[in-house]
């Protein structure tokens, strides 16, 4: 009788159908587990006492001292963000759609059991059942980054108007000048001014010196004039009546006689740079907003000695 039973069991054990059934039950159980994990809200984001100890130890290693309570709080919040993003990435099924993650998980499973004959799909399901995405740093990092990118790219997809070209209107100044050095006496520049007013600009002017930057300047912004010539000179050029020689005017370099040309009102297209800055700012805002929403969706538990709800 006993021998008969043993034979039956041996026979059953050799029966592929039974294997199939058992494997199916196992997979069913595994996927059920995954289902539970993926239900939002039901699985709290839990920061354990061990997590906190690890954060503290890491801080000690980096900084050579224990973190203050504010510093530790910052680290805990960072960890919560990471786990929220990971959980949400899994909920959205990013682990199934990402090639790098799939490859990595399959590789891990084959590493654990080199003899396995399971297919890639089966291995993936088992990896999910084992919650390997959370324990493997590459997969975890990848999933978090993927979700971040997804959230950030929503920023550009949904709001094109604000990204329109940023333009700015500016005055630009043009002028001609003659230079008389830093040691010139303003009173002595009258003869040269008289000659310039009389249209003798090409003649040799008494006291004139070469000016390595040149004689004519076009399209200068107020900021450019300030930086190069100084604010006194800039103000004089801005206030000048176009077309007439005037001065002497003192710059950072010395004394000048100046003739301004009519200023131009121009519109500068800040173009790509401005768009890029706006885009980056919007992405940051979107991400912050999304994190806020996620925090509302999940229950967050931080164990500090005893289990307590973190007030958010």
């Amino acid at each position: 009788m006993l021998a008969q039973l043993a034979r039956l069991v041996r026979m059953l054990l050799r029966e592929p159908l039974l294997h199939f059934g058992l494997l199916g039950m196992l997979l069913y159980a595994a996927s059920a587990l995954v289902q539970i994990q993926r239900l939002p809200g039901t699985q709290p984001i839990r920061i354990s006492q061990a997590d906190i100890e690890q954060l503290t130890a890491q801080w000690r290693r980096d900084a050579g001292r224990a973190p203050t309570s504010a510093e530790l709080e910052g680290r805990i919040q960072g960890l919560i963000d990471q786990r929220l993003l990971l959980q949400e990435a899994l909920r959205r099924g990013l682990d199934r759609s990402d090639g790098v993650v799939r490859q990595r998980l399959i590789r891990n499973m084959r590493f654990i059991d080199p003899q396995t004959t399971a297919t890639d799909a089966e291995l993936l399901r088992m990896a999910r059942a084992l919650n390997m995405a959370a324990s493997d740093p590459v997969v975890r990092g990848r999933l978090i980054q993927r979700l971040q990118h997804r959230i950030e790219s929503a920023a550009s997809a949904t709001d094109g108007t604000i990204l329109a070209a940023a333009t700015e209107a500016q005055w630009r100044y043009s002028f001609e000048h003659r230079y008389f050095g830093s040691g010139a006496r303003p009173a002595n520049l009258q003869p040269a001014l008289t000659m310039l007013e009389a249209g003798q600009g090409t003649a040799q002017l008494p006291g004139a010196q070469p000016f390595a930057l040149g004689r004519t300047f076009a399209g200068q912004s107020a900021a450019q004039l300030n930086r190069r010539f100084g604010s006194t000179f800039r103000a004089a050029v801005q206030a000048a009546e176009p077309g007439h020689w005037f001065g002497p005017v003192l710059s950072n370099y010395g004394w000048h006689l100046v003739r301004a040309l009519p200023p131009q009102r121009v519109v500068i297209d800040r173009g790509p740079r401005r768009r890029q800055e706006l885009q980056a700012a919007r992405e940051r805002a979107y991400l912050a907003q999304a994190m806020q929403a996620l925090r509302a969706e999940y229950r967050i538990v931080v164990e500090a000695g005893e289990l307590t709800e973190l007030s958010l």
Partner: protein
Amino acid sequence: MNFNLDSQSRTSGAMRAGVAGVLALLVACEAADRSTVASDGPGNRQPPTGERRCLHYNPERQPLFGDLHVHTVYSLDANTQGTILTPHDAYRFALGERLGIQPYSAQGTALRHTQIARPLDFAATTDHAELFGEVEICTNPDYLEYNAPECVFYREFPDQSFIVFNLAAVGLPELPQFPVPDDAPVIADQPVVGSDGRIPRLPYCGVDGTTCLEAAKTPWRDTQAAAEAFYDRSDGCEFTTFVAYEWTGAPASNNLHRNVIFANEVVPELPPAYQEFPSPEVLWRELSSVCRPEDGCEYLTIPHNSNLSAGTMFETRDRFGAPYTAEFAASRRVNEPLAEIYQHKGQSECLGTMGAGAQDELCGFELLPYNNLTGDRFMGFNTGPPMEQDFLREALKEGLLLEAQLGENPFKYGFIGSSDTHIATPGNVLENDFPGHGGAGMAAGDSVPAGLTDVVEASPGGLAVVWAEQNTRESLFAAMLRREVYATSGLRPIVRFFGGWNLPQDMCAGGNFAAQGYAGGVPMGGDLSAAPGSAAPRFAVSALRDPGAPGEPAQALQRIQIIKGWLENGEKHEAVFEVAGDPDNGAGVDVDSCETSGSGFASLCAVWEDQTFDPAQHAFYYARVVDNPSCRWHAQQCAAAAVDCANPDSVPAEFQGCCDQDFPKVIQERAWTSPIWYRPQP
């Protein structure tokens, strides 16, 4: 690239010579590649026509200030030292934005901030192409190889990985891996057995390094994206960027580094790196095939820190030990019209010890005391004192000699300065606020170390100045090709320099200096035309002081010199002529307080005729504009900390550099113009 190191000597000459015979034929072929493309040479190139007209357009050209040597997070040696700023951040800094820089607190808050009062007109980030992919993989968990042992090592031991990665990639290769028997087949000139003329990348880079090369595309694309985003394509033309990178060859720590600058947004898919293209001529050959003018791509290469090449930067032989041919010389001249004469790791102008007439006391400025990138690690093992042949003045003279022999001058360099910052802060080059260059192999810390902000021999670096019609890539690049550029030691003096047979004697009398200069001669970087009869050439130089800015003090000008190098009876000569100002103007500085005294000049101008000119002698001339004395960066920090070297016991260890007599506390800031050349008619 920074101080990397190793512990052995260079490949033996015999080994190189053995290879030379076999492959000498190849040289002529590759040397001809690019010279045929631009046979007229950069010196004759005219400004581009048909491009947009900026509001500030000036047909007589204007000086634009920039930095063409900037490292960001993508450079391994910057990243291992805590730099996390990107090319985008670097460009923001160049535009005047205040940036937080390394070190960072554990929460990621920058512990220091820095800013320049005056934005730059242009900049290029030049990260090391060699480890682009390697760094990307080890810092981005997206990659499967993120957890490779090399990457774990990289993240856990940045100090050591700085050395190991650099050695493996760019320092070690020309060292024999083990003794190679004489009859061993050497596949290329690299005696790395098993290589195919390439240098193997680290194991995690996969077969043929493909994983790392693929990963390199990410930082390279971001480099391009940043350059595009920050290039001002409006009519305001306020800021120009260039897509660029650094080719980082330093066999046995002897520096052969080149910055590669692309003319516009048309660039190769990957920047040719040292591992795959392990000599300058192989680099040029590759560049000329992946960056072709007919596709809209153009480039130039700029060697830097020849002072640290242990005699190899201006070798008069090619990589197989064969002497220069005319084609090879022309190829070098066409590919690299400019050299960086000054940066964080000192000046490469002159040593002042060799050649008839060499007695230039101003060669002592920012002179590093060793001759390669090993620096003073290992108590001077694998390096030696600086060598004259590593300095540009000597190289320029050597170039004249080769020109006399071959009809082609391979060392026809215009001069620029730049920073070589490894904290992504272009143009942060002033003595009074030097945060350290961040590239000396020190590990990232999370606190600001006390004491001097860098090793005492480091310098804040300099600037590149380009005389261009307007601030656009086209206009700047054309000016760089024709060498109408000069270098400064960090300040912003304005210098114009013309040479010619017909320059008016009264050019300093207040007429239109630029118009007269262009009409009667050639600007800096140009070539004098044939000598008309027995006339002597005339040179006109006009300079304006840097007026400084709030927080950026500058001294008045002290003097202008013209430096002449020439050949006489086949021998190299040099002479320094004082042409304007007053070397004995009595200006000085008190090193205890850094208070300056005495007066200088707001502007200086001179017209100088070379009375010793002989139309049969090859020659070059460049101008050096020298400021009144001021405190060097370390003297300012020492004064602020009230370090008292007279009382050695009171000096804290971190301020020991203050009392190092080898490094003068007083400097004279300066500008170096590109030379003007003369060659006799055959």
